[in-house]
C-alpha cells in the first residue's frame, strides 16, 4: 500500500518530505519503546509511535525506517522535523490511538515482520 493510502486510512497529516507520498509500505511496527524497535523490528518501513523526541528519528534512521507516524494526536517538534528532513524520513501524525491505527493498517493488509 502506498503512503498516501495509509494516511487516508488513519486520517494522517504529513509534517515532512511531502513529496514522498508514493513510498510503498508493506510492513510496519508499533512501539513506544525504541529499545524494542532496535532489538526486534525487522524490515519495517513504517513505525507507529506515541513517543516524541529526536531519538525516534535517530532510531528510524538506523533501522532504515522511512516513515514515522505519531499516534494519539502527538506532533513532532520543529527540531525533529528539521532532523527528519535532513535524513529524508517522512513524519506524519494521526489523532487515532495506537491500537486503532495498527488495527486499521493490519486490516488493510500491512503486516508486521518483527518477531
Amino acid at each position, binding site marked *: 500500500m502506498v503512503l498516501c493510502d495509509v494516511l487516508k486510512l488513519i486520517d494522517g497529516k504529513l509534517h515532512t518530505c511531502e513529496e514522498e507520498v508514493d513510498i510503498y509500505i508493506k510492513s510496519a511496527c508499533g512501539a513506544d519503546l525504541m*529499545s524494542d524497535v*532496535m532489538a526486534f523490528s525487522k524490515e519495517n518501513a513504517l513505525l507507529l509511535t506515541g513517543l516524541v523526541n529526536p*531519538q525516534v528519528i535517530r532510531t528510524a534512521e538506523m533501522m532504515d525506517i522511512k516513515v514515522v507516524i505519531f499516534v494519539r494526536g502527538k506532533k513532532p517538534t520543529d527540531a525533529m522535523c528539521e532532523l527528519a528532513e535532513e535524513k529524508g524520513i517522512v513524519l506524519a501524525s494521526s489523532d487515532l490511538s495506537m491500537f486503532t491505527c495498527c488495527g486499521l493498517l493490519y486490516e488493510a493488509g500491512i503486516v508486521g515482520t518483527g518477531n
Partner: protein
Amino acid sequence: MKQALWGQVIKVKSILKREYEIPANDFALAGEASSNVRKILTQLGVNPVIIKRTSIAMYEAELNAVIHGNGGKALVEIFEDKIQILIYDEGPGIEDIELAMVEGYSTAPDSIREMGFGAGMGLSNIKKNADEFLLESEINKGTKVYITIALF
C-alpha cells in the same frame, strides 16, 4: 623480507579512520557519530545489510556512553574487509558484566526510560549484530566496547 613486511602493513592499513566525541547527557545529539559512520558506509557502497548491523551496534553503544558513561569517544576504522569500532567512556563502569548482558537487565534511570530507552536490550543487541564483540569495564575507570563487523 622487507617487501613482504611492507605488504603486510599495507594489507592491514585502514581505508578510513574517524574519531568522534560523544557528549555527556546530551540526548538530542546522541547518535550523531553513528549517523556519520552510516553516511560514510553508504558513500563507500557497503552492503545495506552490513550498514544496518553496524548502525544498530554502534548506535546502541553510543547511547550507552551517553546514558551510563558521562559521554566518551568513538574510534572507527574501516578496513578493506571489516569495520572496527571502539566506544569508550570514563564513567562509573559496569559492576557485573555477565548480569549487564542479560536481556531486560538495566540500570538506566526513569528519565531515560521515559525517552524510550533503557530496556536492557542494548548490550545483547550489540552482540547480536556484531561479528566480534568485546566488553571491558573497570569500576570508577570506565567501559570499552569493541565491535568488529566483517564487510563480506
